[in-house]
């Protein structure tokens, strides 16, 4: 496509053409209306003055007879810019007035007519047009013609016509030029955007669309597209990180698994050895399956697919359930699991929230053991002694907080964000079993519910909090299924 072809195909140019046509039409009709009205006005004026003069002269004729008529006519005919006057005898002879010749037959009919004429005193032989009225004077068959030259009207018409020509010409020229200008401007920006888009499609995700300073619709579009690209780039980077992590964290156990099978094959052992090797293989593959499941769960939570199965429940009940499930385990690990709850209404996926809380509790049991006994710290903050883990559920304003506090070494502030990423296992936890997905899943579940996972310092220890939006009391979308939930809200 040629540059010009591209230009005239733009929306801006086509719009310009449409507007141009409309404006030209408007200008033409305005001028036509003006001209027609002016013409009518001039004609009216002529007829009024001519009619007045006719009645005046008729009256003079009636009073003073032919002589008076002649004198008056001759007087008036000699004035500069005079009207046209003519008096004819019943036989058609011109006997007074300033008209040299007339189109034939004009004097034969009375009333208004437009005619060509020539003045007596004029040197040139050109005929002019005039609007005349012929009346028969009472008695004797004399006829009187009074008229007015139409030159004025013609000139005015000419002016209007010229104005129309020029204005339409100017409108068309300016319109087309403006259209081309606007279209080119838009086209340049669209071309720039298309170019960037093509570069991005070719794989360079760092490209961004140019955003002007005017804040017009194209700028808004461009900045929105840029925001979208920003998000896509972040997702792509995340995806790459995840696939690298998956590659690492799944290949390691797969390699172990393979090595063991190989070792068992090559070493000729007894049946018990084979059995042991096979059992370890199954154990290892179970671990892999668990990792896969956790990854799938995170992916579903992050993509928002798990939004089904939402219902209304009390987060305190979830905390109680998890406390009940994990209490013996914590006790076996030499810790105590404590519970502190108050009514905290939630709307969400109970299973996922339970699992998120379970992950936090498992983490606390695994990593929340105090590094060394610090008797001085005892009772310093909460009434939580060094070997306690506290599960807490409460409502705070329009948020529900589900938190797990331990008295372990905690996570340094700089590493907290990092700790929630997939497969991240902080150095302190490498020796413990686990997939490194617990916090990522908890975080994904919180995000799915429109909340977040916060890691904080419990001085000492870690406080991990699921911050979730509380269910508004009487919220309409929950009206039906929440009938069984006691409304204890203040």
């Amino acid at each position, binding site marked *: 496509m040629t540059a010009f072809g591209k230009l005239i195909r733009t929306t801006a140019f086509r719009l310009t053409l449409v507007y141009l046509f409309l404006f030209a039409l408007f200008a033409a009709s305005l001028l036509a209306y003006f001209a027609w009205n002016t013409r009518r006005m001039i004609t009216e004026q002529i007829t009024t003055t001519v009619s007045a003069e006719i009645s005046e002269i008729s009256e003079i004729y009636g009073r003073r007879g032919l002589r008076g008529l002649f004198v008056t006519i001759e007087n008036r005919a000699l004035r500069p810019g005079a009207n046209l006057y003519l008096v004819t005898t019943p036989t058609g002879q011109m006997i007074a007035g300033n008209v040299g010749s007339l189109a034939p037959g004009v004097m034969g009919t009375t009333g208004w007519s437009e005619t060509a004429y020539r003045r007596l005193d004029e040197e040139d032989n050109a005929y002019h047009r005039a609007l005349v009225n012929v009346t028969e004077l009472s008695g004797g068959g004399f006829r009187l013609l009074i008229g007015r030259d139409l030159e004025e009207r013609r000139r005015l018409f000419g002016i209007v016509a010229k104005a129309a020509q020029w204005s339409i010409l100017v409108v068309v020229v300016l319109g087309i030029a403006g259209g081309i200008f606007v279209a080119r401007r838009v086209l340049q920006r669209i071309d720039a955007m298309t170019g960037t888009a093509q570069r991005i499609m070719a794989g360079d995700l760092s490209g961004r669309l140019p955003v002007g300073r005017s804040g017009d619709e194209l700028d808004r579009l461009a900045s929105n597209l840029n925001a979208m690209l920003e998000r896509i780039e972040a997702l792509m980077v995340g995806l790459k990180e995840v696939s690298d992590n998956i590659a690492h964290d799944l290949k390691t156990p797969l390699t172990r698994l393979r090595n063991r099978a190989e070792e068992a094959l090559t070493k000729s052992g007894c049946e018990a050895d084979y059995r042991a090797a096979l059992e370890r293989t199954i154990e290892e593959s179970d671990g892999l*399956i668990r990792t896969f499941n956790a990854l799938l769960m995170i992916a579903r939570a992050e993509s928002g697919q798990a939004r089904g199965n939402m219902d209304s429940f009390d987060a305190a009940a979830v905390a109680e*359930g998890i406390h009940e*499930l*994990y209490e*013996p*385990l914590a006790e076996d690990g030499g810790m105590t699991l404590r519970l502190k709850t108050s009514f905290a209404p939630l709307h969400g996926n109970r*299973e996922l929230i339970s699992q998120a809380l*379970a992950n936090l509790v498992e983490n606390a049991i695994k990593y929340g053991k105090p590094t060394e006994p610090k008797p001085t710290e005892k009772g310093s903050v909460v009434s939580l002694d060094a070997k306690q883990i506290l599960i807490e559920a409460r409502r705070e304003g329009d948020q529900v907080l589900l938190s797990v506090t331990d008295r372990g070494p905690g996570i340094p502030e700089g590493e907290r964000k990092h700790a929630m990423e997939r497969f991240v296992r902080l150095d302190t936890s490498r020796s413990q079993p*686990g*997939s490194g997905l617990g916090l990522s899943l908890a975080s994904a579940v919180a995000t799915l519910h429109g909340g977040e996972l916060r890691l904080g310092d419990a001085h000492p220890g870690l406080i991990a909090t699921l911050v979730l939006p509380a269910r508004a009391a009487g919220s309409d979308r929950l009206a039906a299924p929440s009938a069984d939930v006691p409304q204890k809200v203040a």
Partner: protein
Amino acid sequence: MTATAPVIAPQMRILIIEDDRESADYLVKAFREVGYVADLAGDGEEGLSMAESGDYDVLVVDRMLPKRDGLSLIGMLRDKGNRTPVLILSALGQVDDRIKGLRAGGDDYLPKPYSFAELLARVEVLSRRNVGPAEETTYRVGDLELDRLSHRVARGKDELTLQPREFRLLEYLMKHAGQVVTRTMLLENVWDYHFDPQTNVIDVHISRLRSKIDKGFERPLLHTIRGAGYMIRDGIR
């Protein structure tokens, strides 16, 4: 596994509806090894007609099948009044898929990949031959007695004090006395959680229960079945 299987229903009949030939053959072989009759259908239509005509105790249905998918097959059976217990096998293991499967008329749902021990335990619990003591108000295993109405538990002459959750755990185990129950089954049925804990929570609960019902008694009743789960039974039987 051989220790657990033929105890109750020596000729349990199982229909496996699964299109993947290799895993289907594996299942048939494994079920036959523990002494059950296992038939195989390779697609949804064949499965439907076999399930309707044969008198099976349990159907094991893959969710994605050629010709007719698993859920619609179950729906057809249920519409025709066939109440044969169905266990759904599926690669879709998420909570909402599970709920969908159970709503369609399935009785249990097992995500792939699964261990045969888990599948076997669930099939045995599902089988209608094993309704067993479900409706009784008192469960008895050996000299252990559990009264479901008064929530009393006694071993021999000794009254035992159990926490509510320990009671429910024991109740579930005794309801399925002589059958293997897996950790996942316990988590699902006693706690109503469907996720997979990364730690051995269930084992800890079991060992607490065990210390209450078996400690100090000559014959243990609560047994750990390696690689599968737990079983409560009178050792001699």
